């Protein structure tokens, strides 16, 4: 018989000082944390740092975590904050290095390599997403490519679920225009 260990079980054990339990929470959520950070930073190394530091901060703040609340949105809020800090720092570094223009055009991931996609249809779609404004690209990547719920997107984007809905709606409309433009 398999007994499923829930996040709530692991959180309770981690709060009691069980390192192994927190390690299991990290293993369970590290992929979504890393990918969310990657959507925001567009750099794997920055995303790794952001996700790692977010888990460390989440562990230190475990005492403030509201019992019974879902862990993932709470974690993603911390991950997204760390990722944004790194994106800002990277922008400043580039500017200091006299490459402000490069910072402007730095396109966050995670878009699949267009060359690797078999169909023209998907290549067009990837290219159209890449042309969107960063906040539209982010909401589409989080909602569709990462399959986050609206609540999780709201946590990562630091806004209300209603704002996710409206931003997503505008992003999809823009994406349709981009696709139609490409076929015109």
């Amino acid at each position: 018989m398999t007994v499923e260990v829930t996040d709530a079980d692991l959180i309770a054990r981690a709060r009691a000082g069980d390192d192994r339990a927190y390690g299991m929470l990290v293993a369970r959520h590290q992929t979504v944390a890393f990918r969310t950070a990657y959507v925001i930073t567009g750099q794997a190394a920055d995303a790794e740092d952001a996700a790692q530091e977010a888990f460390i901060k989440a562990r230190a703040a475990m005492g403030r975590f509201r019992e019974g609340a879902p862990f993932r949105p709470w974690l993603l809020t911390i991950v997204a904050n760390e990722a944004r800090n790194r994106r800002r720092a990277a922008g400043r570094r580039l500017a200091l290095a006299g490459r402000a223009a490069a910072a402007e055009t730095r396109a966050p991931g995670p878009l699949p390599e267009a060359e690797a996609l078999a169909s023209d249809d998907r290549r067009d779609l990837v290219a159209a997403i890449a042309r969107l404004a960063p906040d539209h690209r982010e909401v589409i990547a989080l909602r569709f490519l990462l399959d986050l719920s609206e609540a999780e997107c709201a946590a990562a984007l630091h806004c209300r679920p209603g704002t996710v809905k409206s931003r997503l709606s505008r992003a999809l409309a823009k994406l349709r225009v981009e696709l139609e433009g490409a076929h015109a």
Partner: protein
Amino acid sequence: MPDLEARLHALAADAVWPPTPDLQAAVLAHRAPAPAPRRMRRVLVAALAALLLIPAGAVAFPSARDDVLEWLGLRHVTVKRVPAPPPGTRQELEDDLGDVMSLAAAEKQAGFKALLPRALGPPDRVRTVAQRISLIYAPRPGLPKLKAVGAGLILTETRGGIETAYLQKLVFGGTDVKRVEIGGRPGAFISGGQHAYLYVAPGGDVVEDHPLLAGPTLIWERSGRVLRLESNGERRKLLQIARSTVP
């Protein structure tokens, strides 16, 4: 055109993400800073007070600590330009790197696995003090002997703290600091003049009260560790060695 949302869901199946790193070890290795023992706190305060005496006009990098960190992109290392070595600075000796022991014993004492440079293979000897492991390689072609240390290359590894500066580099006049990239991560190459270092452990419980002079040094961070590679070898060769230092 099929429904756009359906096309996006289908696209998700094709998305090529960078491999997810295993974060467990690095996260669990981090410990919240513990209060420093009283005596060591005094040493820490004295060391920091000495740094505060450095004239502000002599600082070549932005003076705010965060700006310095961000410029270099290193989270656990600070680099400050100062006009002259602080009082008590002396040449680093091999004994300063700790006791000689096996790699396994060093890892047990330090509480983490050392990363070995594949370009060099196993070290000739290992020294450890507190949570710091130094891999020492004998001089060889391309890695001439370091001043005052009978080694051609020293790779020192420490666990990176998060909240506390871990390694403070003091660079003096004429020293060159270059930002480099190692495996996609930022690092700093310090050469061409004198520079010294002192360590501050994550809990503030280990402090070198006399900064030690070091040779040309490459510093970077990887897998939750701060790595310091010291050698008189050519920068290109040192970067190649650094890039081969992987888990």
